[in-house]
């Protein structure tokens, strides 16, 4: 399929933006200046200033004389790129492949997109009128190659749409500037009397190369479509992406829900057909006033179920601010995985932790309370009580070792251990009684001590002597005393847990 490209030239990018911000600037000459070797030089102006004779590269002082009442603004570096990026995102409504073309243009790959607006002429008309409504004056150009579209947008008097294969004819009357050449080369060409591309287009390749260098040949043949040129899109296109453009902007929640549901359904059907399920999805909405917003979800399990994915998005619908109305929804699935065979579930009886049903539940819960709040514990090769159970948020991970079974452990663990006042009659024996939270417990039975040493390769410290103690009422506690070998150390007592 032959490619079609659109180049958009924002002739008055900076001043248009300024006029959108301040309406009073629409009808007066405006120019942007930039310091250059200690002088303020004009680098951009609007059409009123242009009519007065202001050109880029003039000194600000001269301009004030030529165009009395001109408004001068100082330019900030990188401002145009920032504006172009915003506009490029806006242009995503026309095609997913948009590239910023500094200093003042955009490039769109519109292959197979124009029929959506009813043809190439209507496509460009729509684009020009919408951008006009936003406040930007543009010149578009459409051709089979990037170079030709660029040239037509900037230099052609008429015929902004180059018919397929018509690059050569379109380029003939244009000045050499239209080939995106360096300033030195342009001067050289002018000095030699080449005022139009047509005057050197039929020279043999080898001659052109010898005279003007390889870059010139490359640019010329790129514009003609004999050399490949690629567009680096602003956003990496996602293979699984669906969009819905709305004829009328929508704002009510019901309509948004219906639209999003239908959009998800389209994507899910496509994924189902390819045996895939999505692991994450991003829903982008573009508002009529040029603002946009995003909602994103993630799933624990590759999913292609419309209802489930919709439910996850629905939890976030409160964040959608439709403003005056939303005119475009884009649903991307940046991460997909092959969906497992559903028949598995039929044989297993109760599903395991990584089954679809449980995964969907955890998606819902995670969306509300936070994904990091859901965890499982896996045995770790540690003996220090606080480190025996390793925390994981992965639901499919299998334990690498067995859970220790030889030692009895309390069902309830206090983290951190709380100090108690204990009285032990004999060293290395369990205390006779202890006071915890103003309650006195007389110990009648005890097991221990079980000495657990601090893991010296992790942390330097002493050891703990653990006792299982049972008081008169039959309540069982896990107590420990700290190390007291060194002179000057006194044994301190803590309660660390409750046994069933």
């Amino acid at each position, binding site marked *: 399929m032959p490619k079609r490209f659109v180049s958009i030239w924002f002739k008055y990018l900076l001043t248009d933006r300024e006029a959108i911000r301040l309406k009073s600037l629409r009808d007066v000459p405006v120019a942007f200046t930039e310091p250059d070797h200690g002088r303020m030089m004009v680098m951009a102006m609007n059409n009123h200033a242009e009519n007065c004779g202001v050109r880029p590269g003039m000194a600000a002082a001269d301009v004030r004389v030529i165009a009395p009442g001109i408004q001068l603004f100082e330019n900030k570096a990188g401002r145009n790129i920032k504006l172009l990026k915003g506009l490029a995102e806006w242009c995503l409504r026309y095609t997913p492949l948009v590239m910023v073309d500094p200093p003042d243009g955009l490039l769109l790959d519109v292959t197979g997109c124009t029929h959506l607006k009813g043809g190439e002429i209507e496509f460009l008309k729509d684009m020009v009128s919408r951008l006009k409504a936003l406040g930007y004056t543009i010149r578009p150009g459409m051709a089979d190659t990037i170079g030709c579209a660029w040239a037509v947008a900037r230099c052609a008097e008429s015929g902004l749409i180059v018919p397929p294969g018509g690059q050569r004819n379109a380029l003939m009357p244009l000045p050499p500037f239209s080939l995106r050449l360096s300033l030195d080369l342009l001067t050289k060409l002018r000095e030699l009397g080449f005022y139009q591309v047509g005057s050197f287009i039929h020279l043999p390749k080898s001659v052109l190369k010898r005279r003007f260098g390889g870059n010139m040949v490359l640019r010329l043949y790129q514009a003609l479509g004999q050399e490949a040129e690629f567009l680096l899109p602003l956003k990496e296109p996602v293979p699984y992406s669906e969009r819905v453009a709305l004829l009328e902007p929508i704002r009510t929640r019901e309509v948004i829900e219906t639209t999003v549901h239908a959009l998800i359904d389209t994507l899910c059907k496509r994924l189902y057909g390819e045996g895939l399920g999505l692991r994450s999805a991003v829903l982008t909405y573009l508002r009529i006033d040029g603002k946009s917003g995003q909602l994103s979800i993630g799933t624990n399990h590759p999913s292609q179920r419309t209802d489930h994915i919709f439910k996850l998005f629905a939890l976030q619908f409160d964040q959608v601010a439709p403003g005056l109305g939303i005119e475009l929804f884009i649903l991307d699935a940046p991460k997909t995985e092959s969906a497992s065979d559903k028949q598995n579930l039929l044989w297993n009886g109760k599903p395991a932790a990584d089954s679809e049903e449980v995964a969907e539940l955890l998606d819902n*819960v995670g969306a509300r309370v936070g994904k990091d*709040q859901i965890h499982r514990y896996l*045995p770790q090769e540690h003996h220090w009580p606080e480190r025996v159970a390793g925390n994981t948020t992965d639901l499919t991970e299998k*334990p690498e070792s067995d*859970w220790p079974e030889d030692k009895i452990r*309390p069902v309830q663990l206090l983290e951190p251990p709380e100090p108690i006042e204990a009285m032990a009659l004999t060293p290395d024996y369990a205390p006779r009684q202890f006071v915890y939270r103003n309650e006195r417990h007389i110990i009648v*039975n005890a097991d221990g001590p079980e000495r657990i040493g601090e893991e010296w390769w992790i942390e330097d410290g002493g050891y703990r002597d653990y006792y299982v103690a049972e008081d008169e009422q039959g309540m*069982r506690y896990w107590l420990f005393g700290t190390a007291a070998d060194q002179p000057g150390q006194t044994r301190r007592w803590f309660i660390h847990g*409750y046994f*069933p």
Partner: protein
Amino acid sequence: MNATKQEMIEKLRRDLLDWEGFRPLAPEEQPFFGLGPIEQAFPNRVFPTGALHEFISTRPEFTAAIGGFIAGVLQTLLEKGGVCVWVSYTRRIYPPALKRFGISPDRIIFIDVAREKDVLWVTEEALKCSGIAAVICETRLLSFMESRRLQLAIEQSRVTGFILRKDAKILNTTACTARWTVKPLRSRLRPGMPGVGYPRWQVELLKVKNGQPGSWILEWKNNSFLHPQQEQMVQPDTQRHYA
């Protein structure tokens, strides 16, 4: 005539259970919990699965005992595979200890929510999911309406739910099938032996729908429940056998 009357009453009782949303499993599907005399207290003389059980705790020591009791029941519920969800607001359960009750702690998914009111929301979502073996919810408050919602979710999904009410100050009416307390008792050892014995509890069934509340002593030994009274009854028999 008498027999038909008896039959009618039996049938009405069964219908009543059905209307209340309690559908017992077929006898061959019924898991064996080994709760012995406690099971007699329930309708149809089986521990109700697919029902809501409420546990009242007023002290952390009781919470630990309840944790042990629930874990013992869970062992049977998890036998057929599946996972268990443990929802809590302030959780202190120590997963490695569950191994002693026959549960592999990695099969439990713990959900720790930051806000107390989210606990019941998560519990309800989990109870709606029939792929889950059991849901344990640690909460403080449970109003009648909330318990009714949970009960309705259970009637669809047949999941067993355990509500562990810590620091329960007011015992309000709830739609739960059973209300329990479990308190630790002094463990028993052979006379003259030092140390602490097997976990031993006073299990009380305060309320049970269509059943008989009661109080029992229960022990946990070698991965199963043990009923001391039963043990005493059995003991003379074995002695005679060996004599």
